[in-house]
């Protein structure tokens, strides 16, 4: 990475940037001073790292036990931008959905577009489908190959979530394609930890009614299970005019999980869910008639189910294998198209220590995906049914260069997919722990986002324009997929610094520079006449092409501080800069490529305060600032969420929650498809009862 390169990319006129330029060198100096300090101290200290005797009982009782997916590692030892949202974080933030919880993660942009639609992205490229993020629920991918992204049709019972592990930046070396800008793994609790019963429910003005029940029990020694059901009903959002949007959302889900520890060596896990959702929205449909378009309210129904089985087998204390199989089906009916999608996936991985220095992980996987689409005039796929296979393998070696000091991780994923063929996604990560409480890491990785059905096989009829007489009368602007696309490619350079300053104060800083190639953009083709559907009209084709390049860079900072036993503060700040340009074969001005830069906020800030008051009250506040999105016409906003919790007894908890308190309503994002809606101020109360 060339520093001068970045410098000349900076727009010169921003006052904030010039301010940053002035302050950053000072910060850097201080940072170097700090690190120097640490190094100086390093010489004097004996190696305390693996010494477990320094922890008091009180320390131990407050310690979070973390096991990050694929293999277990200490959080401070992971050479990547990791962030973990705990069960307590979820409970005390008052969030009612996973996307809302992700707002805690520094650098994550979460925009609620309407009552049932979220755009969740990281490090830029804000889009309805968050196309560069990979999202997993207990290791099961919910990324849709049809839309090349994630729609939040799938959900979990929040009370079952143990933690949400988030890695910003590429995780492709382990997780494969589409883990380009980040990975989210939602981990639910072992059913051993959800024994007894739980009943929760509440209501408010935006959360019109929600509830869930869970029951857990054991059916044999070391065999536990739980079953649950949940429901919610969310109110319509409003248009900027103040009118109600037709996007209310009602959703049912039920499921089970079974954990069976057969013996010291074998563990089996089964889970499954079934859901049905009812939502809707408002869109402008193109019409080949004098009106050219009509605004229509529509309904969306989704039904789906999934099952997953996992078998972990210990070969020895330093060697184990995991085999996982899952099946996913969803049946979506909406105004744009109906789709049935099915995914079958089998994964095997083997983890073992090779000598004292090498921790080795390798795996194989195969995924079979198929869909069947019912086309409409607005959106159609050709072919309307497709079956694709994805074969993958990965290797990773974590090398201890020097015990408790230097670690090098090398790895790569190898994949073969039906769109772009063979893809290699390697990475190299170096971790240095000058002291037990400080980690510095740096990495270089390559990741790809493979095209999906929408990019490759779709046709979207966007707008009908009048055409000068004589006939044809209409000009239909249509967007065409392209089955000749390369994968979008990312080379990412990242570095991070983690410092546990005192047991109650920690700091985590990550910087990145991403270089993208073959990004998807649009080109315009030669208009041609089309007979069907009647009347005869002209088609102006816009074609998806892989001609855009881009650079993004930014900083993400997370800090947490316990000023007192009863008080915790958590702050997050992120800065992001994006530059996009076509490769020369398509003019930038054609679709205002630079405009897309303005889809993601430059600055975001979040501050959470959690207080335990008296013996059984909790007062939690959450302030967030999101910078404006000029391309979408979204002004910057500051919001406040507040929660008052009362533990009436050991089993019973009541909370009163306020969301988006600072304004009556505000917009957070838009889509190309639906009419933009705004998020309103909300209040709800919630009661949770647990008993064994």
């Amino acid at each position, binding site marked *: 990475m060339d520093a001068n390169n970045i410098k000349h990319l900076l727009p010169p006129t921003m*006052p*904030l940037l010039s*301010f940053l330029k002035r302050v950053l060198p*000072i*910060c850097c100096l*201080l940072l170097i*001073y*700090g690190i120097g*300090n640490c190094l100086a*101290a390093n010489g*004097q*200290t*004996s190696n*305390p790292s*693996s010494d*477990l*005797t*320094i*922890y*008091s*009982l*009180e*320390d131990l*009782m*407050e*310690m*979070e*036990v*973390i096991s990050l997916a694929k293999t277990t590692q*200490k*959080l*401070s*030892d992971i050479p990547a931008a990791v962030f*973990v949202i*705990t*069960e*307590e974080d979820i409970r005390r933030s008052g969030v009612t959905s996973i996307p809302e919880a992700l707002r805690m993660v520094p650098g994550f942009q979460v925009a609620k577009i309407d009552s049932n639609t979220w755009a969740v992205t990281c490090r830029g490229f804000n889009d309805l489908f968050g196309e560069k993020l990979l999202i997993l629920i207990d290791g099961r991918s919910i990324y849709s190959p049809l839309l090349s992204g994630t729609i939040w049709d799938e959900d979990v019972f929040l009370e079952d979530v*143990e*933690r949400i592990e988030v890695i910003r930046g590429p995780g492709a070396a382990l997780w494969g394609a589409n883990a380009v800008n980040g990975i989210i793994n939602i981990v639910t*609790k072992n059913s*051993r*930890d959800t024994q007894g019963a739980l009943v929760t429910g509440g209501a408010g003005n935006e959360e019109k009614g929600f509830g869930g029940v869970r029951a857990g029990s054991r059916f044999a*020694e*070391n065999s536990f299970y739980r079953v649950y059901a949940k429901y919610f009903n969310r109110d319509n959002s409003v248009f900027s005019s103040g009118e109600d949007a037709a996007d209310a959302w009602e959703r049912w889900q039920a499921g089970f999980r079974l954990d069976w*520890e057969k*013996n*010291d060596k074998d563990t089996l896990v089964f889970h499954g869910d079934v859901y049905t959702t009812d939502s809707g929205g408002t869109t402008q449909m193109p019409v080949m008639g004098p009106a050219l378009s009509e605004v229509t309210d529509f309904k969306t129904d989704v039904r789906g189910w999934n099952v997953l089985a996992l078998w972990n087998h*210990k070969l020895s*204390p330093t060697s184990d294998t995991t085999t996982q199989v899952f099946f996913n089906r969803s049946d979506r009916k909406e105004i744009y198209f109906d789709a049935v999608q099915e995914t079958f996936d089998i994964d095997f991985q083997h983890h073992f220590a090779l000598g004292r220095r090498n921790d080795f992980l390798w795996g194989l996987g195969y995924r079979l995906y198929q869909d069947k689409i019912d086309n409409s005039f607005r959106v159609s796929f050709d072919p309307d049914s497709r079956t694709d296979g994805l074969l993958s393998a990965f290797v990773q070696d974590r090398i201890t260069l020097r015990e408790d000091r230097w670690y090098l991780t090398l790895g790569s994923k190898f994949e073969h997919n039906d769109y772009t063929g063979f893809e290699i996604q390697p990475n190299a990560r170096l971790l240095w722990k000058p002291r037990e*409480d400080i980690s510095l890491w740096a990495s270089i990785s390559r990741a790809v986002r493979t095209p999906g059905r929408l990019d490759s096989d779709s046709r979207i009829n966007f707008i009908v324009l009048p055409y000068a007489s004589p006939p044809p009368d209409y000009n239909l602007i249509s967007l065409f997929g392209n089955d000749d696309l390369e994968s979008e490619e990312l080379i990412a350079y990242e570095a991070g610094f983690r410092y546990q*300053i*005192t*047991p109650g*104060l920690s*700091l985590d800083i990550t910087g990145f520079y991403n270089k993208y190639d073959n990004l998807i953009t649009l080109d315009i083709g030669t208009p041609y006449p089309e007979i069907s559907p009647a009347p005869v009209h002209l088609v102006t084709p816009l074609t998806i092409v892989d001609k855009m390049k881009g650079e993004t860079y930014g900083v993400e900072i997370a*800090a947490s501080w316990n000023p007192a036993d009863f008080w915790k503060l958590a702050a997050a*700040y992120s800065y992001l800069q994006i530059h996009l340009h076509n490769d020369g074969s398509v003019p930038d001005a054609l679709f205002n490529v630079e405009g897309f830069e303005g889809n993601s906020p430059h*600055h975001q*800030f979040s501050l959470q305060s959690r207080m335990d008051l008296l013996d059984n009250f909790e007062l939690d506040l959450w302030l967030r600032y999101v910078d404006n999105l000029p391309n979408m016409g979204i002004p*910057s906003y500051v919001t406040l969420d507040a929660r008052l919790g009362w533990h009436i007894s050991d089993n019973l908890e009541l909370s009163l929650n306020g969301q988006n308190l600072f304004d009556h309503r505000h917009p957070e994002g838009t889509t190309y498809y639906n009419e933009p809606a705004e998020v309103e101020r909300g209040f709800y109360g919630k009661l949770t009862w647990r008993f064994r």
Partner: protein
Amino acid sequence: MTKRILTYILAIFCLLLVSSPAPRSEAASSSSLTEEQVKAAYIYNFAKFVQWPETAFLSANEPLRICFVGSEDLFKAMESLSDKTIQGRPLKISKRSTLKTTPDCHILFISRHYQGEAWQELKKNIFTPVLTIADFDSFVSGGGIIELVREGSKIRFAVNIAAARQAGLNLSSKLLKLAIFVEE
């Protein structure tokens, strides 16, 4: 307005960096241990807060024997402490394949895969004077002395005083105070 807020934030972060206290050699960094390490550290702490009867040791420098039945990973985590001393005694950490060969242990950790056997042996009262520890359900109410309990992402513990008394062990009041549950 926003620029000013950002200025403050940056200033605070810079301050944090400068004002970071003198480096400490023993940083108890939270959120950075594996489950096994946390459990091993617990066992080490328990040992400090338990008094064994004099008959439990033949001589003043006899090692404190910590035994594991099952739980290979925990045993390994514990082994990193084998050069420590507790109450002036060196530690001897060992693995046993069955509960029947454990009467010489001072601390006995039983993995959940041996719970069937544990219920039977606990009834026979053979664990004297042994501090029994386990991480499975109902261990404490079934006559074990300390149970490690998973509460969300944290590990806590419960204590059975009656069982400790019966085994001839004296638990310190600190242990009882911190336990999430004390069976009398």
